[in-house]
């Protein structure tokens, strides 16, 4: 068997259903953690605060709908990858962490700061909370990128 070129290697990992299915699950899981821990349990986030922009409500509704569909679609894509024997655990974990980090950073930067949907917490000095929120998101995203690199290398060496 001739070794494939590195270009198709990358494509085959990034186009893998394991990658995208867990990416969707990662997005939705982080959104779920946000909803359950910060909205419901801690009640730090508000369902709505008066600083929310109109466009924020629109984007929030679309994102919320996309999350619900992503959660279900992710699991079905994962099942599809398994029945087609194209499931790869390391690729799946890479996609999952990219999804977690992408949601956390989107929420921390776009939702909280640009669209001002709500803040991390109220009646406190907000800066440390925002920094911690986004640093956590960045760490998750970095983990996802590292795992993607590992998946690419394993694929290349046939491991």
């Amino acid at each position: 068997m001739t070794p494939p070129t590195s270009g198709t290697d990358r494509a085959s990992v990034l186009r893998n259903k394991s990658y995208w299915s867990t990416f969707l699950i990662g997005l939705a899981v982080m959104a779920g953690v946000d909803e359950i821990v910060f909205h419901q349990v801690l009640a730090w986030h508000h369902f709505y605060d008066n600083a929310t922009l109109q466009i924020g409500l629109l984007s929030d509704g679309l994102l919320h709908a996309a999350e619900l569909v992503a959660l279900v679609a992710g699991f079905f894509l994962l099942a599809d990858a398994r029945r087609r024997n194209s499931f790869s655990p390391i690729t799946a974990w890479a996609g999952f962490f990219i999804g977690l980090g992408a949601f956390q950073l989107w929420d921390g930067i776009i939702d909280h700061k640009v669209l001002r949907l709500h803040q991390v917490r109220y009646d406190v000095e907000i800066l440390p909370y925002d920094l911690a929120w986004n640093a956590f998101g960045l760490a998750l995203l970095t983990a996802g990128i590292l795992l993607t690199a590992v998946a690419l290398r394993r694929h290349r060496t046939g491991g």
Partner: protein
Amino acid sequence: MDGHKGHGQITLDPGMLLLIPLGLAALLYLGAALSENRRGNRTWPAHRSLLWLLGLAVIAATLAGHLAERAHTDFAAHMAAHLLAGMLAPLLLALSAPITLALRTIHVESARRLSHLLNSRLARFLTHPIPAAALNVGSLWVLYTTPLSQAMLANPILHYLLLAHFFAAGYLFTVSIVSIDPAPHRASFRLRMTVLILVVAAHSILAKYIYIHPPPGTSPLDAERSGLLMYYGGDLIEIALIIAFFTQWYTATKPQHPAPSRPLR
């Protein structure tokens, strides 16, 4: 006391009267399922009969009983009735495949007429995802952003008419997305998924809108309770709809095995 309403005379609540057609619908479906099973060569799945009965029970809960009484005056109870009659009942009933059962059990001449009706241009238009979604979302926005919601709470007949309308619109939308029953010219998975996302989005945006802007005649506290109920209650039912949708995708995209022959059924 009014002389015409003496003791022993039962006052008929229109909601109670509406339970009669529901009971008939249950009997009709079960009778059809039984006759289908008795024919021997095919069996009608028991879970479909159960879904049909559950769907009718959900409608019944919006017509009679504690919730139905409160729905005439309390906006949050009305919202619960809307979720049940306009979203949950249509999903349960659509998954029970009543048209398929009807086509199998009614007389062949009537079955032909029914399938002509389902093939008609109007039926195809109404069960296409885009018009069905527009009807569904459009009616909700009109109801909750105009004085219609206030009129509905004041007038019981209007309340029932609107429930019927929401059920019909909800049913058309549900079958446009997940149809077990025969659906000629069904839209692609991609289009159906796009419409599904947009409708879920519109629903959650409207829930927040109600939370922020109480409909005419509704107190801010009632509006907040109703908005939250619509948002989170709607999510639960929508997740069930999304799961049903992807289950159909999963079945339809089953990989074709190169096996030479499959056992005939």
